[in-house]
């Protein structure tokens, strides 16, 4: 069949009626203080990986909490676990643990 170059875009909306929240809930059980994130972006601003690549830690963990897991696992590979983000977090979140737990709970995705 000839290809004319047309395609159908997938909906971009986060659909909280259908998203699987189980991995997100497991993550929050393991690192409960992540629930207190106020999205200041301090972690992302100080992130060594984020300054050299498109890695955005704040955005990634927020996506996980909304039940959006696509590409997050691969993105987490960019983290070098240096821990600077943990030093700057005003809510005292163990951000390094968040990275490791995200990889663990998303292993199946």
């Amino acid at each position, binding site marked *: 069949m000839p290809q004319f170059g047309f395609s159908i875009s997938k909906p971009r909306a*986060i*659909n*909280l*009626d259908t998203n699987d929240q189980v991995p997100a809930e497991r993550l*929050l059980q393991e690192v409960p203080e992540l*629930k207190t994130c106020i*999205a200041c972006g301090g972690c992302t601003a100080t992130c060594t990986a984020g300054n050299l690549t498109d890695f955005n830690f704040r955005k990634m963990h927020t996506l996980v909490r909304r039940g*959006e897991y696509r590409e997050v696992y691969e993105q987490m590979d960019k983290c070098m676990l240096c821990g600077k983000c943990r030093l700057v977090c005003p809510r005292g979140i163990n951000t390094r643990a968040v990275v490791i737990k995200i990889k663990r709970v998303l292993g199946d995705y």
Partner: protein
Amino acid sequence: MDKRVVIIGGGVAGMQAALALKERGAEPVILEKEERLGGKLRDWHRLFPTFTPAAEVLEPLREGIARAGIEVRTGAEVECLSEGGAVLRGGECIEGGATVICSGFDVFDARIKEEYGYGIYDNVFTTVDVERMFNEGRVATAQGGVPQRIAFLHCVGSRDEKVGAHHCSKVCCITGVKQAIEMKEMFPSAEIYNFYMDIRMFGPGYEELYRRAQLEYNINFVRGRISEASQTIDGRVQIKAEDTLVGRPLKMTVDMLVLIVGMKGGSRNVAFAGSGGLTVADNGFMQPQDSFLGNVSSGRKGIFYAGTVTAPKNIGESLNEGVAVAARVASYLGL
């Protein structure tokens, strides 16, 4: 000089002002348009951030008024100001040596934000409705069911050019957090989402309560304003917003949508300004003489303010202004 002080409005600010004035030797008279003292607080269940029952604030004030023998005129709606006091509907003039305007605010009418469907869809409520339900001891969806998913929307009628409200009503953020916690206590298995533009926790204990809402009560806070709501075939509410922290649109269906309504200037303010030579500020509230040393003065001789007539305030601030205005009035009257 005449020791009689005309107090317009018998809410917390008016009652506190009357009590403090009586202590200083003045003869206050409270003009209250409703049949009972208490103002907006009569419809409230518990107060942020301590979950104190509203009655624990109202009853001591009402008892104090009764004990002090302060004159109270209920069912007395003030039409406008007169030379030395107020003119009631029906034309009666109540006059004294000074007038304190404690007429409060109006609750934003959520029907104006038609896109949220308040008064159109079955399961869209306001924070005022929720307090009423708490008082009645029963919270349920319009169909009588137990809500499993509840969304709160902050800033309805605040910070919104479209409804002519540039101002922040300031107490709604913490009200939304308080009610979200109360809902979670009532329905522990329910999912609760608060949609906000900014979370402004200005008072002592507020930020701490917000943190507890996140950590202990698992309330989900999503930064983004709901743009529209629509009713599903089974009577639930579908909402759309942007999750601005990830930059993607978001949609979900909820059993209840609660609109956290803001405060607007009182509907009588224009009449007060016209008859008393006072100024209504751009935000619709009365303009005090200044924001610092003259914050309970009007700039006109013998006319003073206390409480939310001049700006959105919480109960504690309104009570403090009741005391502050009594000191200013007493010194004006030479007491």
